[in-house]
């Protein structure tokens, strides 16, 4: 079954002469447990698509349905709850809370949902991410690769329906990028997560089950790769 679907999704910014059509009639389907990558040049509309899918921004027209629920029909408060339970974000610039240590950063989304973290699961994640030794460190005491692993941990902690990764390797060297890609792949294989990743790097795009190319606001599937 599809965990994410968009139907005739459009997003326009500005009015009149300055009007920009960032997304034009985008309709895609993503099934549970799929690893999807989105590629495209700067300004093609990748980030806009991600904002729509991540329920961060409302579309001008068209629908986004995640796990059977239509994003547009939800009110602000509902949307926050929906986001914290169903979507995990990974950013290019890590975006960890500088005042919280590794473990605290990871459990924060769970706490925001007024749940008690499953310590066993968190420890397991820390182990997989290679951060067990570092769980009491602050982000400023970690390398970029380590910080991004914490961000992956934070995204996985709530077991969301979709993980959205926006250029997760953009700020990393090749060794760390490789690690991050392996971890994302692992989360798809081991935890049956759905991952949607934006990337510039075509070789990392090939890690994915499917690849979408965005060009001038239009999305085209490049056809199933390897698998």
């Amino acid at each position, binding site marked *: 079954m599809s965990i994410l679907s968009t139907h005739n999704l459009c997003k326009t910014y500005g009015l009149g002469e300055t009007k920009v059509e960032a997304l034009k009639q985008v309709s895609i389907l993503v099934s549970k447990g799929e690893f999807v990558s989105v590629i495209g040049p700067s300004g093609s509309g990748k980030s806009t698509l991600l904002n729509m899918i991540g329920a961060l921004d409302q579309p001008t027209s068209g629908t986004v349905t995640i796990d059977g629920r239509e994003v547009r029909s939800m009110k602000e408060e509902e949307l*926050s709850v929906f986001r914290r339970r169903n979507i*995990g974000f990974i950013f290019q610039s890590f975006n960890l809370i500088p005042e919280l240590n590794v473990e605290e950063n990871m459990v924060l989304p769970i706490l*925001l949902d007024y749940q008690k973290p499953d310590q066993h699961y968190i420890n397991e994640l820390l182990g997989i991410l290679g951060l067990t030794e570092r769980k009491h460190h602050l982000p400023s005491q970690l390398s970029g690769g380590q910080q991004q692993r914490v961000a992956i941990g934070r995204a996985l902690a709530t077991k969301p329906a979709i993980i959205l990764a926006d250029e997760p390797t953009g700020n990393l060297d090749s060794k760390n990028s490789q690690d991050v890609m392996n971890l994302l792949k692992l989360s798809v294989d081991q935890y049956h997560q759905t991952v949607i990743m934006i990337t510039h790097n075509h070789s990392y795009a090939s890690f994915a089950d499917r690849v979408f190319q965005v060009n001038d606001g239009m999305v085209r599937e490049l056809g199933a790769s390897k698998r």
Partner: protein
Amino acid sequence: MKNYLDLAPKYLSGHKNKTRLTVLSVVMAVALVVGIFSMLDALVTFEKAQVLKSEGNYHVLIRNPTQNEIDTIASRIDVENSGILKDLGGGTINEVTCALGYMDGAFAGNLNIVLAEGEAPKNDHEIMLEKWYLDQLALHIGDTVNIALSDGIAADYVISGVINDWGATKAASIPFVFMSKETAEGLSAVTSQYFVLFKEGVNIQHTESVIAAGLNITEDRVGYNEGLLALMLQTKNNRVLTFYLIGAVLFGLVLVTGIVMIYNTFNISVLDRVRQFGLLRCIGASKKQIKRIVRRESLILSLKAIPFGVLAGMLIAFVCSGILKIYNPHLFGDISIFSFSAIGIGAGVLIGLLTVFIASMLPAKKASKVSPVNAVTGSESVKISGRQKQGILTRLFSVEIAMGINNAVSKKRTLILMTSSIAISIILFLGFSVLVNPTFMGMKTDKPYTPDLTLTSDLGMTSELSEKLSQLEGVEVLGHPTEYLIDLQLSDKNDEQTVSKVGAVIDETITLHDKRQMNAEADNAFMTIAVFIYGFVAVIALISILNMLNTMNTSIAARSKYLAMLRAVGMSDKQLNKMVLAQSITYSLTGCILGCVLGVLLQKILLDFLLADWSFPLYQVVGITVICIMTGTLAVMRPLKKIRKTIISEMITSL
């Protein structure tokens, strides 16, 4: 970490520097409110002591009462104490003019007729005299003096008691003679006044009108102890009510200032965290949760700040009380310096907590409105209007100064916050300076030409006498002495020996008027008000300057990354200084202009209301402008030094 709200204390301890500035700002706001209101409270206490001393402890008086009126009023359940004072006309005592009178023993203390020695006259032909007169004539209790009444009938009277000096009679050199009840009843009074002190909690205006209506007492026969009634908020005197209104406006303004100070501080601290809130929204924090985090932060900050603020405010009030007590230990001896003003502390804590909640509500709302997209895109947009793009500023100034001014002007919210923060302090200062006014303070007697002693004579005094007097040690003859009047000033006001030396020089035809006590009493009245009014103004000025320093500091600390970025692209330290200085002075001047315009307007309105003359407060405005620019300059010194010391790369990577 058990709860997402733990983010609040973690954020605060993670940003020690910023937290300290915020706490300091709340401390100052609370100290301002606690200080001013505690001082107001102390002022009322001290003024009351002053009024009880100078005007007496009574509420209303009835002129020339009938016996029926006296009996009716005295038997009322709401009357605490009452008594009659009769003026029995003038007379002579040992052939010197004197005033004769009678006072009910039970009420004498309320009018500061205090027995120093002996006892009050009980029997016919017993009298009570002032101490200075006895000393002057070397008389003692039990001695007999000859008194002639206004009708010329003379008789011998025995001195039964001595009372403390009265400033006015001592200065006039006319002794007051208190007679016994028996003697007084045999004489006809010129006038009499029936003094009434009501019990605590009695509505005096109402009761007085009930009594007057019941006994058909006309309004012109009723007098009020205005000073005391004003302090008890029981007056219907229009002039006093005007003062109340002005007081209410000014003290209301103090509360508003406290609120604005705290509000602005929280606002500034929330404004530069847009990104962080966006991020939290991204990982699933709801608007409500963001609000709760901001409110929790505010609560922690105020719980830290309020106790310090209260302490600082109390300290300010203690200093004022201390000054007054040192100045006049007799009058204010019973008043403790360390009195805890419930009004002051209550107002401070209330304003602190309430404002923190209200003030944090709006920034919290703002914070919660941050779109989560902000975290993804990572930029807060600065809207640049078309006009600024044309670069008028760069044509007028060098690029770094133009950037500084532009930085200040283009961020509208920060501009509004800084400007209003500075302006409100200036408005408050200008408003309170209205109180530094003779109408409020009472005329000060201690001018350089105020005589301590005055010699008068109907027969004339020779110039040799004034020469002789000027040769006495510690005595200065004031101005040009005439045949009939010589004014003297003493270098030591408490030097009784010199006074007796002066007494020894003059003969019987010359009268010595000892004006020292009267002057001192007037001085005290002036000092009591002046210490507090100057105290108010000083506290406001001090806190305003500190607040300005602090706010500037906060706003620069918040921009350290931006500044690091500019340094990275090649801005020299000198240029950086100029830019930040230009920005800070822009804030100072906008605040200064707004504050002066509104403050001067307020001054004019208040003075018009008082029917007092208004003139443009040029000196004040110039002074404020200078202080504003100086503070603006001073405020950027420390943060700039710190910014120059930091390594650029450190700041940039944390972008």
